[in-house]
Each structure stands twice: as structure tokens, then as C-alpha cells.
């Protein structure tokens, strides 16, 4: 027996966001319910435990004012949102309802906000380079169409600027069409939302954007649905309508905090730092929705932003994220304090999909080797810099001094660039060669003889001289 469409009166107990009822044997697990109080207020909830004897409902929103006289209506369906191309250019709340004063969406379809896992055998392997115009990203952490690549940041760092710059500049070389943008704010301050909105407006992307906003003062529990609703919209745009979608969700830390709060209300056994043991799988059910699918033209490229509590990379939020996403872009407080924008520290950063998206025919044949060499050399340079703190610059060997200089120029010339500056991948790689050429050739062990001959500035000069 189903209780679909039936309305019950008789809440047994309200415990934080949880409502417990008895004698509703036909409630379905994860079914959506609507709750109405006598004074006409309405809540939205979902069945968390469906039992013959006991039903537990998780309520979205503040449960204050809920009492045993409320009416509970079972809808017979899981949480779904309407989707259609009319979403473009519109603004919604974290439950997928329009909040821009415009009309309701005429639905092409209703989609479960949890989506369904993409069959791994039906994924298409992402291997197309996206040029973001940012050297540190393009050169050493290449973003690939269909990749999930988060920004690991700290409060006070310009992660919004970096994400906005990517959104403004990203193109797949050779493809005319620009990315559509699905933007979701999770527990964000209005200022931050305004920043993104102005940016999208400024570069003319509003009409190809969909915004989902859960602000700092909006219900905490809706932070759980916001990313899912946004990705449901993105999936429709990408895999039904064939668009290339860039999804930006910020701040995933607020999402995780909401998840922790919910878990503790459910009295679950916590794992590390109070976060639930299933947070890995929960986050995976969000992040894994990025990608490409065989036989479908569109894609979801996903750039979530999270702020690392205390700047700690081993904190469960960045840790579990890094275990799921295809790399990370790490923003560094120290670089920021030294006035470097974008303050990307490439060493703890990574793009796992870079290997198949760059090289001859895609970017340039020297790309991979140059990138490897930059990593190796910059890490030597930072080591030398640490040493300076201890023994002073005079205590360095000539080789260490060279690497120190390399690191300085790398940060100032390669990493640093303007918020509005767009560098082509050729420009990026040429800057890299320029800096690498201060090192003796014997140090360039990650670069083959062939590539040195063709691209090393000194050899190019020599070859030219010979030719003349």
C-alpha cells in the first residue's frame, strides 16, 4: 500500500531537522513530503527511514513552529526539478525555484536531483585542452573538457577572481562555441554572489548562465540540495542539449559543514573531525557527475571551490575532495602576500587528465616536458629559498643560487599575470623556455635532446647563426 497523495496528521516528535511519525506504513524511502502547519506555513522534507512502525523525515529549512498538529502530505516521488532550456539566463534558489521574479520554467522534463551514476563503460575519456589563458593552469595544470578540477583556497584569497577569469577566458581551441555556465552559491555572502553576477554580466555570459543561490542566511539544509540541483540542470544542458557546460560551485566547505550538521542531528557515529564516514561517497555522488559521455556532444567541466579550514590540506574536506576530483588548483597564502596573482602554488597542485590533453596536435610538442621540468626546477628553487632562511644567501652554492633566481622569475613572470590578461599556450610555453634557459643544460633532465634542439632559446639562436 502506498500513501502517495495521502495526508496524515500526527507528528510524533520533532528533533532538530528530523520529524518522526508512526503508523504510516506505506511511506517510501527518500520520498518527498510537504508539511503544513495550522498557521499556514509550509515545509519540504524527505523520508530518511521508511518503516512499518516508524517513519523519519528530514525537513529542509528551520523546523521551528512545527508541532504535532501539522499535516504531512506524501508526494510519492523523490526530489525532482523541472528542466528546460528556459533555465538559461535565470536565477534559482537551492531548491530549484526561480527567485528572479520571472515566470516558472515550462518543464521539458522532471529530473531527480540525485541523478544516476554514469556507466563507466559509457564515459568518453576527456582529452581536449581548454585554454584558460592563465599560464600556471594552461602550462602546468591543464584543464580538460569534462574534467573536475577544484580550487583549494583559504578565506581572503582571490579564488573568486581565478574562477571568474577561467569562466571569462576558457575556450576549446578550434571550437567557436563558448561555455555555458552553471553557477551555484552554497552558503555564500551576497557580496560574493554579486561579484560573480557582475562578472558574468560584464563578459556577456548572463544569457548563457544559470544561477543557483543559497546565501549565508538561507536555510543550511538547502545547502545539501543546491549542488545537486545545479548539477541536474548542468546534466540536462550538457547531455540533452549538447552544450559545453562549466559548473562553478562555491563554497563546498559550506556544503560539507551542512552535511556534518545534518549527520550530527541524525546522531550518526562521526568519522574524522565530526564529519560523517560517508562524506567521501556523498561528495563523489556530486563530483562524479562531471564528464563526457560517448555519443553525446556536450560536457560538464566542473570547477568547485572550497576553502581549506586553517589552510590545512589534510583537513577532511580538501582531503576527501582531492581523493575524488581529477586534481586540484592550490592557492597559496604566501604567494598572495607577496603580491602574486593568481597565487597558484603549482607544487601541491595537479591536473590528472593533463597527460592526454596536451602535446603535438593539441597544444605543442614540448608542453609535457617543459611542464615536468618546471615542476622539478621550481621545487629545487623553493628548497633553496628555505635554505636562505637558515644560512643566508651567501651560504648557497652557485647551483642553489641559480635555482633561487629561477624560482623568483618563475613566480614573477610565469605565474603572475593580470586578472584581465589572456595568454595563449604558445606565449605561456615561450615564457617558460625563457626562464628555463637560465639553467645549465645538464640540469634540464626532464627534457629530451630533440626538444632541446628545437625549443631551447640558446640552441635556436645557435641554429639560426649556423643557418646564416
Amino acid at each position, binding site marked *: 500500500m502506498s500513501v502517495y497523495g495521502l495526508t496524515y496528521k500526527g507528528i510524533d516528535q520533532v528533533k532538530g531537522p528530523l520529524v518522526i511519525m508512526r503508523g504510516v506504513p506505506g511511506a517510501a524511502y527518500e*520520498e518527498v513530503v510537504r508539511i503544513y502547519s495550522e498557521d499556514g506555513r509550509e515545509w519540504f522534507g524527505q523520508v530518511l527511514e521508511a518503516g*512499518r512502525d516508524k517513519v523519519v523525515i528530514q525537513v529542509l529549512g528551520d523546523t521551528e513552529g512545527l508541532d504535532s498538529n501539522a499535516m504531512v502530505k506524501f508526494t510519492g516521488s523523490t526530489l525532482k526539478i523541472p528542466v528546460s532550456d528556459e533555465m538559461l539566463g535565470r536565477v534559482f534558489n537551492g531548491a530549484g525555484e526561480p527567485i528572479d521574479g520571472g515566470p516558472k520554467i515550462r518543464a521539458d522534463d522532471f529530473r531527480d536531483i540525485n541523478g544516476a551514476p554514469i556507466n563507466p563503460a559509457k564515459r568518453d575519456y576527456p582529452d581536449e585542452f581548454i585554454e584558460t589563458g592563465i599560464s600556471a593552469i594552461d602550462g602546468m595544470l591543464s584543464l580538460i573538457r569534462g574534467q573536475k578540477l577544484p580550487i583549494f583556497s583559504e578565506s581572503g584569497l582571490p579564488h573568486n577572481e581565478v574562477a571568474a577569469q577561467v569562466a571569462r577566458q576558457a575556450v576549446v581551441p578550434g571550437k567557436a562555441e563558448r561555455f555555458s555556465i552553471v553557477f551555484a552559491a552554497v552558503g555564500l555572502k551576497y557580496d560574493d554572489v554579486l561579484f560573480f553576477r557582475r562578472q558574468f554580466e560584464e563578459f556577456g555570459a548572463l544569457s548563457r548562465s544559470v544561477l543557483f543561490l543559497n546565501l549565508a542566511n538561507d536555510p543550511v539544509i538547502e545547502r545539501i540540495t543546491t549542488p545537486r540541483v545545479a548539477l541536474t540542470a548542468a546534466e540536462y544542458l550538457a547531455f540533452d542539449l549538447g552544450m559545453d557546460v562549466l559548473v562553478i560551485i562555491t563554497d563546498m566547505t559550506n556544503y560539507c559543514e551542512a552535511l556534518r550538521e545534518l549527520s550530527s542531528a541524525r546522531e550518526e557515529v562521526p568519522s574524522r573531525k565530526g564529519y560523517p564516514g560517508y562524506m567521501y561517497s556523498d561528495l563523489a555522488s556530486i563530483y562524479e557527475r562531471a564528464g563526457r559521455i560517448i555519443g553525446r556532444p556536450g560536457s560538464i567541466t566542473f570547477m568547485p571551490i572550497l576553502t581549506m579550514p586553517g589552510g590545512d590540506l589534510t583537513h577532511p574536506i580538501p582531503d576527501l575532495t582531492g581523493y575524488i576530483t581529477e586534481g586540484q588548483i592550490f592557492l597559496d597564502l604566501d604567494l598572495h602576500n607577496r603580491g602574486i596573482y593568481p597565487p597558484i602554488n603549482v607544487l601541491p597542485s595537479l591536473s590528472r587528465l593533463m597527460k592526454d590533453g596536451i602535446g603535438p596536435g593539441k597544444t605543442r610538442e614540448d608542453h609535457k616536458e617543459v611542464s615536468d621540468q618546471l615542476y622539478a626546477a621550481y621545487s629545487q628553487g623553493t628548497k633553496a629559498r628555505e635554505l636562505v632562511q637558515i644560512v643566508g644567501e651567501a651560504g648557497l652554492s652557485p647551483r642553489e643560487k641559480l635555482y633561487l633566481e629561477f624560482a623568483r622569475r618563475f613566480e614573477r613572470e610565469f605565474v603572475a599575470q593580470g586578472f584581465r590578461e589572456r595568454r595563449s599556450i604558445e606565449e605561456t610555453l615561450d615564457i617558460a623556455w625563457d626562464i628555463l634557459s637560465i639553467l645549465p643544460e645538464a640540469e634540464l633532465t626532464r627534457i629530451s635532446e630533440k626538444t632541446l634542439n628545437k625549443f631551447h632559446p640558446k640552441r635556436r639562436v645557435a641554429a639560426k647563426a649556423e643557418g646564416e
Partner: protein
Amino acid sequence: MSELVYKGKGVIVHIKGPVVEAEGMRGAKIREVVYVGEERLIGEIVRIEGDKAVIQVYEPTGGVKAGEPVERTGEPLSAELGPGLLGQVLDGLGRPLEIIAEKAGGPFITRGIKAPTLPRDRKWQWTPEVKPGDDVIAGDVLGTVPEGSIVHKVMLPPTVEKARVVEVLPEGDYTIEDPVVVVEHIGGKEEIKMYHKWPVRTPRPFREKLAPVELLVTGQRVIDTFFPIVKGGTSAVPGGFGTGKTVTLHQISKWADADVVVYVGCGERGNEMTDLLHTFPKLVDPKSGRPLLERSVLIANTSNMPVPAREASIFMGITYAEYYRDMGLHVVLTADSTSRWAEALRELSSRLEEIPSERGYPAYLPDYIASFYERAGRIKVQGRREELGSVAVIGAVSPSGGDLNEPVTQHTMRFVGAFWALDKDLAFKRHFPSINWLRSFSKYVGGLRDWWIDNTGHDMMAYRDKAMALLQRASSLEEVARVVGEAALSDENRLVLLSAELIKEGFLVQNAFHEVDTYCSPKKQALLLKTLLEFYDRARPMIDAGVPISRIAEMKSLGLLRRLKFVPEEEFENAVREAVSQLEAEISSLLAEVR
């Protein structure tokens, strides 16, 4: 195994995530597979209390209601074993992902899909090896069929102890459902097909376990030379995210000199499975000359697929591995990641409200980990053949926060023969594989000296000791240099650092994505390490003669030595000779200069 059909049905009384309680289940067995709800979702009984059963459901339970039926099957969770496994991509329950996609009618996985592992309509070319009247025992070969890159032996299943052959189908093409042999035993007549089912949580029997002695060549220098694994051995790869666990496992499943590879993607990324699916059909197995996919079974239960199936996927995989082992083959199973598997166990345990032990894991975690690694080994197969088979198990471990002091890493460490500790600092500077040479171990080193001498003509384990000593010395010098600066060290000590650096760059660092470097044969490994080690001995007299270290470090031939690893096998010996003679020339001119 007989097909039991249970008419009795239970009724769901409670649903909480993947854990469902049902009544009317009297007589059900623990670990019995059941179909849950109207959509017949696959589940397994994990606890029985009188009439009530607690069921772990392997598919999402959204929409399921109390009052819906639970059907019993009478069978434990089993793997289908027979020809047709190789080349397959399966989910954690052994369902082919292609068939799931077909039945789901799209790229997203839907619920309640039933799909047998082995194709029923495909025909196999059967050659009998027995005739009516023959007496056979469990494990005896009844016939063979070619499958992918191997000869698949159809054996008398372990469940039939001994029997007499009464009928045999003649050579020809048959499906796995055709009874190729009929035997007679105490229980009566039994049709034997090319496949049978085996409960995944029960290790398959063998005659005897033997000590593993033969190197499992992976072509990865730091592994084969420094922390080797053997055929039938075990190894764990712990490391934080981005340290190279997956690439290591991918490399091993590509290059290991095994007959069959089972790759279990357990709770990890979808695109990593796609990566394998894209590369395996293109890569050629050097042993058979056929596409790598034909020697592989891939299991993909990615992080966004149902958590309970992660738990099943590892057992499914090891059962496939044992089955091919029983044919007298060398099998490698790689599991990425065993931590996700342990976490699935933790989640179930917490939902069952068991008392948690360390970090929320149940107290039986160590037994559980052991029950997996203990299924590795080199064995004498069942039946009346003198054949050996092996299963090597290599598991990635994903410690939270990269901290190796967590329960899964710690318990795993106790059960494995080799331990490749990945190092974040090495990974940050793109020193890959980031296997830390001071924190890793292999218990197999001692037994492999002869193998290296027999197979390469080099006493590689002696080179290894020498290289280790050099690396260790360098590591303590680096400690000092970190305080006083490298410039303050004596030239002699700085030569040690330079020579160690050469071993690191020229030998330990190996680029998985470099055409040549991705695989290095044992012969090349031996000659390369020997050559690089000799640098120190050759350069030493220069220090005594007063050549400044900065001049030594600038030698062009050093660059040649560092890049020797990129030289293809065919040209390698020549390249070594050339590099060494150039080195000698440079050394004599430097010596001449100071004189």
C-alpha cells in the same frame, strides 16, 4: 550447483538507506542473496534474528516501501566462472557494464537490472581431454577452449570430489550452457558445463601452498630492483591523493609478466576506468601478441556507484583470479582502493549499529583485510596435474590525510610482503613513482638474488645494496645540508649527493607516460644501475686530485647518464658504452687540467 527456487517470500518492514529489514524470513541463511522490493533489487542477508533478516542492498533503495516483498534465492553471492570473463568490464556484482547500458537504454545506470556475467549465446571451440570411462577428480581438466590470449581449461568443479566420465561432447563449438561432459558419482549423474558458480567469500581450494620465489617483473625499476614483488606475493601501495597509487596499479596491470590480470576499481574515479578501457584494447601483450584487454578482467564499481557493492567487488575479483590460477596460470589482481572497500564495511557496520573500534571501523577489520590478502599465493593446483598457479595481490590504500598511522594502512602492513610507501614530497616535485626508498620494504628481496643472476647475468641484489647505502648516506647528508647549506659540505660529501641524485633522476624516477621509459626490462635495469653506480667510483679520484665539485657537476656526460633510461632497449648497450667513454674523456681532461 543445483538451482534452488524458494517459494517463500518475506516482507519489508523497514528501509534505511542500503539496509533493509524484512520479516517472514525464517530458514534464510546468512549471506544468502535476496531480491528486494517490487523492482527486485539485489541484496545479501547480513544478519538474522528469528524470523527477521537484515539485508544489505547493492542498489539504491529510493522509493522502496515497507510491505514490499523479499524473494529468497537460497544461494550465497557467487561468481560465474567460465570462458568469457576475459575482456569483460563488470560492475561490483559481476554484471557486464555494456549489458547494463543496453538494458538501461542509456549511459546512466538504473536499478533492478539482471545481467549474467558470461555471454550465453557465444560459442566456444571445445576440445575434450577425457573420454567416457575415465575417472576424474576435482580440478582435473575435462577439455579446453581458447579464450583471449590463453587456453581456458574446463575443469571438474571443486564441488565434485570424484566421478566417472559417462558422456563427452565431441570437438566442436558450444555455448557455456551445453553439457559438454556428463559424469556419474555417488550422488548420481551430473551434467558439467563450461561454467560453474562459486561463492565469492569462500577461497577456492588447492592442493598445497608453496613459497613464492619468482620475480613478478613489472618493468618499474624502483619496484623490481628495490622493493620487488613475486608471483603469488602481496603488496600494498599506501599514499595520499595524487601520490601515484592509481598510476602504479595501471602500470602493473599493463606491464606485469602475468597471464591474466584482474583490475578492481573499487570506489574510485569513473574516468580512470575509462582510461583503462581506452588504452587496454590498443596495448599489446608482449607475451601473446594480442590486445592487453584479452588477458584482463576489469571490475568497475566507481565512487558514485552504490557503496555496498564495493564490498562485494573485491571478493568477486579475487574469485576470478583464483579461478584462472586453478588453470595453472599466473594471475595478478590489483585493487584500487582497498580503503574504499574497508570504508564500505565501516558504513555497513555503523548502520547495523555494531560497536565501533578504531576510527569507527569494526573490531573485525584486521580479519577482514587478512581474508583478502590470504587468498594470494603460489599453489599446486587441484586435480592430478603437477601444475603451479599463482595469484599476486596488490592493493592501493588511501589513508585519510595521507597519514599512514590509520587502521587500514596499519593492518594491511602486517599482511603484505611488500609495502610501497608513496611520498607526498616526492610527488610534489614530480619524482614518480613517489615510492619512498627509506620507508618502503619488500620481504622478497632475500630470495631473488639467484633469479637476477640467472635472468640478467648481474648480481642485481648486490647493486641494490650498494645503491641503498648510497641513498641512505645522501639522506643523512641532506639533513645536514638543510641546516648548514650544501656549500658548507666537503666536496667529497657533495660528490655523494651528486651520485645519489644521479641514481634518483637516472634510475628511480620513471615516467609512466614516456614511450620508452614506461617499461624497463630487468636486463636494462641491471645494466643501467650498474653504470650509474660506477659514476661515483669513476669520479672519486677527481676529488682527491682537487677537481672542484662544481666542475664535476657540470660535466656534459652527466646529462647523458641521467637520460640513459630514455634510450630504447635495442640501442641501450651502445648508448651506455658511448656515455661511459664520454664520461671517461671528460674525467681525464678535468684531471689533466688540475695537474
